């Protein structure tokens, strides 16, 4: 069975707030924010929205140290997504309405998902 198309628009970080605001005015709801680490120590953030079962996404690619404007001013419920990305990947957000300051998850290492482990499977205990 073939699904509906899922259009994805790539935008620059400074156009993010304008793009999200436009979608809010059209009546979309926020669905998710996803972060992936890609080659060259860069992160790509994908913001997904939905209206009447039609799914669209905006994609922003940033270097590791860049700061991204927070969309919690437009969508108040996005604070959990942004805090999770901040904790697991180390991406900095500017202007979050609720900031957990790194205490959302209880973990030992800082930004664990930004560190890549070996792609080998584990061997059995006997070695």
């Amino acid at each position, binding site marked *: 069975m073939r699904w509906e198309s899922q259009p994805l628009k790539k935008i620059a970080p400074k156009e993010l707030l304008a793009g999200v605001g436009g979608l809010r005015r059209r009546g979309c709801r926020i669905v998710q924010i996803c972060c992936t680490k890609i080659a060259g120590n860069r992160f790509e953030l994908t913001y997904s929205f939905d209206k009447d079962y039609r799914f669209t996404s905006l994609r922003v690619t940033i270097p590791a140290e860049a700061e991204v404007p927070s969309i919690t001013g437009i969508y108040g419920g996005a604070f959990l997504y942004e805090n999770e990305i901040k904790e697991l990947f180390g991406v900095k957000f500017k202007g979050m309405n609720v900031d957990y300051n790194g205490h959302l998850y209880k973990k030992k290492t800082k930004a664990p998902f930004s560190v890549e482990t070996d792609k080998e*499977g584990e061997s*059995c*205990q*006997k070695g």
Partner: protein
Amino acid sequence: MALFQMGKTIIRSMFSRPATLMYPARPAKKFRDTRGHVENDINRCIFCAACQRKCPAVAICVDRNARTWELDVFRCVLCNCCVEVCPVKCLRMETGYTQPTTEPEMKVVMKQDKPAPAAAPEANTIKQEARKRARPKKK
């Protein structure tokens, strides 16, 4: 009325069998396809270690030289993956949950009775076994 509905239910359950099962004093319910525990027919095993490679919980350990197959029961999640990939179908999933134990670990170690094949390089062992099985048919 809702009051009498609960009253009816309560009186009915006073006079019928309990719905709960006195497990582990009584054995657990099981059906034909329940996934209970993994068993290995060790004398047919060829120690190819496909089950070890595919196990998502890293619960199986195969030693080809010592002819042993070991299963860490506490790690096994009963996913049925090893049973599906075994090329000679010596692994099977049986019903019946593992009994609780007070030991900190539980391993099932099985050793094959047949003597080890005479010093053959590891890479050819599977081919040799297959040829050995095929030889009587040719006669």
